[in-house]
């Protein structure tokens, strides 16, 4: 467009300032506090100390970091296995119901985050629905099966919470896929399986990559799931961070853990961008 862009520059201002004051500067502050030491009353004394990072990578806390990546990774993989066929079925065979079906699949996501986790407490608890059903099936008198406080309860909770973040991008990729390519593959006597592996799957890979990022990252930072469905043995980094910002915690250590979390995020994002540019090159070639 022509002249008179000044007004658009003015429009940039409020949002930019907001993000600067309440997102960028605070993140810088987290980094500064992570390098500080605490004095006797628990206030940060700024400096350039790496103590907090050393203790984060100490044998006591390192398992928590590994466990977090493991749970988030397992949840992402399971979500992928559940979400891809679902998105594929809706995109390919949904017909006129496509949009209604995809809304149906993402609808549970709009149910309150805590209520969704709580639902699993109701189902899996010692006095919960599942144990009630087992009891009714004739396992009377036997002690309740412990489903909660186990790794699979936490991973299952993450799967349930972040499922839509995979379905949506995969569905979008499959929906935009040029069906003429598939028809061409069929015309050239490729079997359905070959068409899927050589045409459909590669062409939907940008959606899969976006889905992996969108499910893995929030799973990494989750803490209510492990808090409510798990126990001390299933603590994730998020729980550790939340503890540091409670009354008894150390905010400099909590900040260091947050920076570690953001670093993992950065690695994932860079990996995503790198594979994205590789994919783009492969398409051009």
């Amino acid at each position, binding site marked *: *467009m022509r002249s*008179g862009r000044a007004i*658009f*520059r*003015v*429009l*940039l*201002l*409020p*949002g*930019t300032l907001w*993000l600067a004051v*309440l*997102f960028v*500067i*605070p*993140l810088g502050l*987290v980094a500064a*506090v992570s390098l500080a030491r605490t004095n006797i009353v628990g206030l940060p004394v700024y400096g350039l100390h790496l103590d907090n990072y050393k203790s984060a990578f100490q044998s006591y806390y390192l398992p928590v970091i590994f466990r977090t990546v493991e749970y988030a990774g397992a949840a992402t993989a399971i979500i992928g296995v559940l979400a891809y*066929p679902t998105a594929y*079925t809706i995109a*390919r*065979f949904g*017909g006129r119901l496509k949009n209604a079906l*995809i*809304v149906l*699949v993402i*609808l*549970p996501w*709009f*149910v*309150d985050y*805590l*209520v969704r986790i*709580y*639902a699993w*407490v*109701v*189902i899996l*608890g010692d*006095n*919960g*629905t599942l144990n009630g059903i087992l009891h009714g099936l004739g396992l009377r008198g036997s002690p309740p099966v412990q489903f909660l406080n186990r790794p699979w309860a936490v991973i299952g909770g993450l799967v*349930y919470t972040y499922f839509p973040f995979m379905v949506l991008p995969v569905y*979008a990729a499959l929906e*935009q896929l040029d*069906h003429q390519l598939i028809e061409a593959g069929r015309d050239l006597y490729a079997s*359905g399986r070959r068409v899927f592996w050589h045409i459909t799957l590669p062409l939907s890979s940008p959606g899969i990559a976006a889905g992996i*990022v*969108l499910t893995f*990252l929030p799973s990494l*930072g989750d*803490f209510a799931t492990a*808090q*409510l469905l798990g126990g001390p043995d299933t603590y994730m980094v*998020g729980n550790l961070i*939340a503890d540091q*910002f409670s009354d008894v915690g150390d905010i400099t250590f909590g*900040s260091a853990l947050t920076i570690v*979390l953001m670093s993992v995020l950065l690695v994932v994002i860079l990996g995503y961008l790198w594979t994205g540019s590789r994919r783009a090159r492969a398409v051009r070639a």
Partner: protein
Amino acid sequence: MDRLPASQGGAGVRRARRPGRPRLLVAFTALVVCYLFAPIAVVVLFSFNKEDSLAVFGGFSTRWYVALLHDGGIHASLIASLEIGAATMMIAGIAGTALALGLERSGLRAARVVEGTVMLNLVSPEIATAVAALLIFTQLGITLSLATVILANATWAIAYVTIIVRSRLASLSSQVEEAALDLYASQWQTIRLVTLPLLWPAILASSLLVFVMSFDDFITTYFVSGLGVPPLPVRIYSMIRFGVTPEINAIGALMTVATVSLALTALALFALRRTRSGPGVVTDLNG
């Protein structure tokens, strides 16, 4: 949409060639849908349970809803959360729309940096942005309250509105706006009379989305809410930690009805603009 008949034809041909495959996929999808809805159904069912039990349904009763009706603490928390949702929606709706217009039309190089910041905000784990907000408030000596919750929630909410409104803006042809300018409308008149009406469904939909999300936001709210009345999610969290009571089922069922109907309204607004022109629901959500 113009490809739809071809794709349906393709599906039909496939179905004829191998009848088994879609059936298996359809069954799988049906199972996934059951898995997604079963927990919510359990919560709603047991909210009407006559007994205290979460294992056995002892008969229909509305006693837990009656208990809710008389729970003053819950009412206060509900009002606090409604205030958070409304204020966040107003701030994010206005600042996010303005930012979307600025990013798309200002032609500034610096806008790329702002855009990168918006994206970084969107992909950051919520716990990280919540910790950052908490630190800036405590270091500036600001007492945690409903206001800090609104400030912190509006930060991610602005990013959501910006992305959604911007994707709509990008799909609009600038020719309409140029026509208005050719007819001697000022830049501001063009925005007000041409651009904003075209963007209205996207602004409304993203604002509703942000209302729902900030109303039941837990992580950010948990970190930056003070000692006053806990917003509803924070109260639910402490109720669950204290022990599961069927009253939470009733809250959950009511919140489900409220948020899902608002979400459906927002999605209907997306659908509305899809049928007019432009790409579909999901492509828009992905930005």
